């Protein structure tokens, strides 16, 4: 059973067209949900960590929110440089330090 599911797999936006990426998880007792950005040929770059439902964090045009079953990464007025793959990961209870990653959403922002 998939622990972390991201949708959509790919998203194309016009510059300035706001949207949201989804990360849903099927576990309880979450010990943190993490968002990363990954550019082609590079390792993931940390964006946010969320720990409890209702928590929100912002960074420039990005805002991450968390509910009991999913997280959203909202992108406001995106720019072409926001084009990347966005990954979410969860740290599960009783698994030591194992992090489970989704397959990512590939975002393309068209000028």
């Amino acid at each position, binding site marked *: 059973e998939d622990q972390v599911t991201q949708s959509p797999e790919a998203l194309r936006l016009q510059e300035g067209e706001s949207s949201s990426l989804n990360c849903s998880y099927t576990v309880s007792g979450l*010990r943190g949900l993490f968002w990363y950005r990954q550019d082609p*040929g590079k390792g*993931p770059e940390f964006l946010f*960590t969320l720990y409890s439902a209702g928590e929100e964090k912002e960074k420039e045009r990005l805002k991450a929110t968390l509910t009991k079953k999913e997280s959203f990464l909202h992108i406001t007025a995106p720019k072409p440089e926001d084009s990347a793959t966005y990954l979410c990961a969860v740290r599960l209870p009783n698994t030591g330090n*194992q*992090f*489970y*990653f989704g397959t990512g959403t590939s975002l393309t922002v068209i000028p």
Partner: protein
Amino acid sequence: GAGVSQSPSNKVTEKGKDVELRCDPISGHTALYWYRQRLGQGLEFLIYFQGNSAPDKSGLPSDRFSAERTGESVSTLTIQRTQQEDSAVYLCASSLSWTGTDTQYFGPGTRLTVL
């Protein structure tokens, strides 16, 4: 300060050969993680080290995979008798502590191609 570095950046090998991948974590980071990322898939946990504690090897896919770390420094991931399905990007990450709440900083990865 320098980030996580990995070498080589690319490795092409023949089926059946052994390969060794290297990770240099950020200085002072006590936790180190190895992941595998196959094309179009998410990151797959392989192993993590915390200081001098016994590593969590539960993610290693077979006994052909092994990893070592000396103290809180360099780590090497060794794949013996490589198979074509081992082709992937191998990513290393380090974090300040083992609690898991600390941010993981990733290296650029090693792209392994097994012919």
